């Protein structure tokens, strides 16, 4: 892959929080994402929607560097994420570079993935103590603040097995925030939840949008929620961005045939 055409760093004047530049992802001959170009601005909340298999979750996983990419470069705050500069050239990133870069990115998963052998509080202290090197007292104070923010402070000493899905997901959000990320990724965080607890999780995300200047990228199937809180909706179809627009415009007046079809289908399902 020729990387010489890619800048080593984005110029100050043109530095979105995240930039996907000609990013391609494939598994063998199956192309999941085809030449993706996507900027996410500082503090922006972008919702990624689309039919299953459209590559939307892959976008998040690539940004978390859980997936390698086959072409292109991803920049975070102007610096290459998937690559690093060596000898004046871009080369694939090593483990140390990835670890440094992903420290500014937090992620919440569809199935929460809380650590079952730790209490809610310990889950939220683990990263700050083990990775950021905070003292136990500092980490505890930070974790308790965040657990209070997500309304889980009274369950802080419970293990995940004693918590409902909605409660686990709120702890998972607190755990990710405890690392003080600048970018938060939400990968279908309400898809595994019972309908009656979805609200408690979306409420927390609404609060984040309102009170923090985090840059957020969210994959979701909840159109109403996405419309309410997003600055922009990205509709993925077959590994490409088919259409993107601010939510009012996107839902009221979708331009593309595929988008209209998808929105009709989602509406029928409701």
């Amino acid at each position, binding site marked *: 892959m020729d990387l010489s055409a890619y800048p080593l760093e984005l110029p100050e004047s043109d530095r979105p929080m995240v930039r996907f530049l000609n990013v391609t992802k494939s598994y063998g001959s199956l192309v999941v994402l085809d030449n993706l170009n996507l900027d996410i601005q500082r503090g922006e909340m972008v919702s990624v929607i689309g039919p299953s298999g459209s590559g939307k979750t892959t976008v998040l996983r690539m940004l978390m560097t859980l997936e390698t990419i086959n072409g292109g470069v991803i920049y975070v705050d102007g610096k290459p994420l998937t690559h690093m500069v060596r000898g004046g050239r871009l080369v694939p990133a090593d483990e140390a570079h990835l670890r440094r870069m992903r420290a500014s990115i937090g992620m919440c998963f569809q199935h929460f993935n809380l650590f*079952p052998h730790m209490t809610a509080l310990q889950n939220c202290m683990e990263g700050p103590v083990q990775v950021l090197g905070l003292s136990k007292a500092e980490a505890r104070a930070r974790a308790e603040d965040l657990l209070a923010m997500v309304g889980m402070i009274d369950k802080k000493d419970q*293990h995940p*097995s004693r918590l409902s899905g909605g409660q686990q997901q709120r702890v998972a959000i607190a755990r990710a925030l405890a690392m003080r990320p600048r970018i938060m990724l939400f990968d279908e965080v309400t898809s595994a939840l019972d309908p009656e607890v979805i609200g408690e999780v979306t409420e927390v995300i609404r609060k984040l949008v309102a009170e923090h200047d985090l840059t957020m990228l969210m994959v979701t199937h909840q159109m109403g929620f996405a419309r309410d809180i997003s600055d922009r909706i990205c509709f993925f179809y077959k590994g490409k961005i088919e259409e993107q627009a601010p939510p009012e415009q996107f839902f009221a007046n979708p331009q593309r045939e595929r988008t209209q079809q998808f929105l009709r289908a989602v509406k029928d399902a409701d």
Partner: protein
Amino acid sequence: MWEFLQTYGPRLLDGALVTCAQFVLAALVACSAALVAGLGRLSPVWPLRTLATLYIELFRGTSLLVQLYWIFFVLPLFGLSLPKFEAGFLSVGLNVGAYGAEIVRGAITAVPRGQWEAGYALSMSPARRMRRIILPQALVLMLPPWGNLLIELLKGTALVALIAVPDLMFVAKQINGTTFRSAEAFGAALVIYYVLARLLITPAMRGLERTMARRLGRA
């Protein structure tokens, strides 16, 4: 029978104590070897993987008795002499450790992928993820098969009698040799082995399983 126990009880007890010592030391060797080899099998570094595979193949694929004889009788020819007591628990421990390594490996790979990913998303290094996130969960999964293996290990220690470690089996054979009261001598050994396995190892492992379950908040 009563008079037999009165005469030979103390010697059998001494033997049982040596068996217990062999068991504890061999179990330590087995656990350490299993952990190292199990992690080695999963290592991204190929020489470590190869080394671990060689160890497992060698000790699982050949007879414990032959390994015992090798370590006690053959290694001295290469300049490495071990006293019989050390040679005994080392052989048994390394042999059982090879089976344990597969248990360790299996348990680690059975921890859900999402746990790795959650640790990864917190920027944890691979070693830290293994130590803080994966191993504690793998430990819970591997306890039941380890309970089984430790009973195997206890019974395996009987072979050290063949290199004259004065364990329970050795004492029983000695008593049999001098008195020809085979039924009593070997009967007593049988009962003692059973009692050790059934009343010490099994409850200890059950207790450990319960403790671990509690730490997961499941009890």
